């Protein structure tokens, strides 16, 4: 990861206004977005002082001892079968142990629908002087690309709800940047209706209330619903089955507040 990119990611994380907490734990991945393993790596990379990071992946928990932006080892796991790796400091000198720990974290976290983290006080761990492995080292083992630009809130909203949508047309600064599904109708709407609608909306409502999700029940063929999502320069047209409205709105609120 380049220094500039790393710096940009840290600034993005610090300025994020959509951090969601749940019973004292911070939600770091929901519905696979961002990718759970990316989120685990980011937490390790952000932890300088020694901490016990408790990750909850849906119903499973794993506690990792992390210090100096490096994973030292596994302190505890809620499921059985990990006794061989618990309490041992990982090191590149012991590749079998390192791979076993990486596999264990991956098996618990990689497919989590909801991943949270809680930063707890450290506990005595290990006997050796090994420093553990860096987030970058773990990324290499998992073959995860960490040098990615941070996703915008709209990007997270679209990724999180991909399975709830049947088609998407994403426009930024009047340019179509992404599409999904059968978007022909959405493109026609974009070309013929959106600008006029936004002008009428601006005239009707004077107040600017930030990002908006506007849903129209049964506005498309076969009773499919349409939605217009607006945030900064992002304009997104969405087609979705009408009965997904509750889940779509709930996700919007979690990301945009």
């Amino acid at each position, binding site marked *: 990861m380049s220094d500039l990119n790393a710096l940009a990611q840290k600034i993005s994380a610090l300025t994020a206004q959509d951090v969601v907490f749940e019973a004292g734990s911070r939600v770091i991945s929901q519905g696979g977005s961002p990718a759970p393993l990316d989120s685990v790596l980011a937490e390790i990379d952000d932890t300088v002082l020694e901490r016990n990071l408790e990750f909850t992946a849906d119903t499973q928990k794993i506690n990792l001892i992390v210090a100096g932006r490096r994973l030292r080892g596994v302190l505890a796991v809620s499921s059985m079968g990990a006794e061989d790796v618990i309490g041992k400091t990982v090191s590149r000198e012991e590749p079998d142990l390192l791979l076993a720990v990486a596999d264990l974290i991956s098996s618990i976290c990689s497919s989590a629908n909801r991943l949270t983290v809680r930063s707890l006080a450290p506990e005595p761990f290990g006997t050796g002087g090994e420093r553990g492995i860096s987030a970058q080292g773990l990324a290499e083992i998992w073959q995860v690309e960490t040098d990615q630009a941070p996703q915008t809130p709209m990007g997270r909203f679209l990724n999180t709800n991909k399975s709830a949508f049947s088609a998407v047309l994403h426009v930024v600064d009047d340019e179509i940047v992404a599409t999904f599904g059968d978007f022909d109708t959405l493109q026609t709407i974009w070309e013929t209706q959106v600008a006029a609608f936004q002008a009428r909306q601006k005239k*009707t409502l004077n107040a600017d209330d930030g990002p908006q999700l506007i849903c129209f029940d049964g506005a498309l063929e076969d009773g499919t619903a349409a939605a217009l999502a607006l945030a900064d320069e992002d304009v997104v047209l969405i087609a979705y089955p009408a009965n997904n*409205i509750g889940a779509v*709105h709930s996700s919007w609120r979690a990301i945009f507040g």
Partner: protein
Amino acid sequence: MVVNELDALREKYESCNTIAFADLSTQMILVTDSSSNRRREVLDDLCAEASLLLGANGKLAIGLKQSNSALVASKSSVRIFLRAEDEPNDVLCCICAPTVDAGAFLADARACIDRISSAA
């Protein structure tokens, strides 16, 4: 009584703080729930928004056909609008907190506007 229907819906949803019954053809709020203390201008804006989203006089907002319900979620509120099944000019306009369970509220509000419209 229309107001009783509006009050019952509002009482069921703590996160709902205004419900109004409006006529799109005249763009007028006819009745609000009995606890609502919104200013007239706010209610007028709400009615204008209903007209914009549900489409008055055959004018489409977004889509291939007029919607029978629309929802606007913003940081400060969720505004929900529903048109009666049998009388296209009868609409329910609701202002809720962002925390409202949109799916459940829409189902109950749909039943509410259809009862009001069919009794009128």
